[in-house]
């Protein structure tokens, strides 16, 4: 599958200016719960064609994490019209991530 990674250079174009809602997973490679959640985020990416799904590595993108007030990961945010509409913290079951999209 295509890489879901976004960074500070394409975040505006891919996420903030997206016409469809965007689910963004803020994560880090050293974070166990993030790695538990990763495959679920990827599953959602494959299943839902009505939204876009991206991942932000917070180590490489500390400014983006700070800008969106990320203080605990995994942090999954649903962006609508350039703003965070809903968010979830922690390795939650898939049903809770899907609930962000309702």
């Amino acid at each position, binding site marked *: 599958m295509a890489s879901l990674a976004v960074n500070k250079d394409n975040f505006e174009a891919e996420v903030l200016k997206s016409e469809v809602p965007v689910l963004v997973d803020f994560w880090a490679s050293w974070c166990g719960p993030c790695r*538990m959640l990763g495959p679920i985020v990827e599953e959602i990416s494959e299943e839902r064609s009505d939204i876009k799904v991206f991942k932000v590595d917070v180590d490489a993108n500390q400014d983006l994490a700070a800008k969106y007030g990320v*203080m*605990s990961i995994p942090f999954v945010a649903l962006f609508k019209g350039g703003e965070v509409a809903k968010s979830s913290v922690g*390795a939650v*079951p*898939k049903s809770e991530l899907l609930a962000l999209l309702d």
Partner: protein
Amino acid sequence: MYDVLIIGAGTAGLTAAIYTMRAGKTACVIESNMYGGQIVNSPAVENYPGFASISGYDYANQLYEQAKGCGADYVTDNITSVYRGASSFTAIGASGKYEGRTLILATGAKRRKMGVAGEDAFSGKGVSYCATCDGMFFREKDVAVLGGGNTAFDDALFLSNYCNSVTILHRRDGFRGEAAKLASLKERENVRFITDVTVDEITGDAKVSAIHYTDKKTGEKKELSVDGVFVAIGQEPDTAFLADVVELDASGYIVAGEDCETNVEGIYAAGDCRTKKIRQLTTAAADGTVAALAAVTYID
């Protein structure tokens, strides 16, 4: 109907599943969150026999795959009540009903909450229960660590490497934590202590900006400006929904000895949720083994 219904997919629950399946019985593991339990938060596990060093994530994944490979069923559901039938037990979850001839409770433990105003509202917005997970977001910031035991000391030591300042707030004058850890904390210039206080409230706007506390000696109310609050006041078992099912001790742990037998025949307690002295991966695995083999013997 399963032979053994297992609630909780940490080390104890998944080990119980492996032993149950290998004994030729059927098992279903029900977990409300992700499998693996608390160890998933550990960057490196270095005290599990046979593994010099393995990440909590890799360990949890291998254990999960092993249990699945043995043929155990796995369900994600939040069990809210358990009923005892004539010769079986029924666990009721948010999305289903599960029946077993025996029941292994392996619900684990989690960080205890303070129970103060603002704690839940700012969870993930400055209030944290895992310093190693969230510490990096508080680089060059001012944080408070609540607690006086080894967990609080470990958190404070870790955070003092990154943070501008770390203030340990504790409700007593003395500390329960190891003297050696306390000594190394006292050597750090950015660590300070405020003792004999009651924490009243955590406040802020979009994120935490202050913690409010009362000096127990003088009754004076004070405020400390912080960006983060790390709660490290010990653990509590995840057993509230079992209060009417099995005997719990005053702290909520399921009363059972090394044989894992609860006061109800056919129900076993395994891992951190059981009354015990040592809570480690190895003891959780041991409990999972003992509980599963006891359940198998009970069925036979």
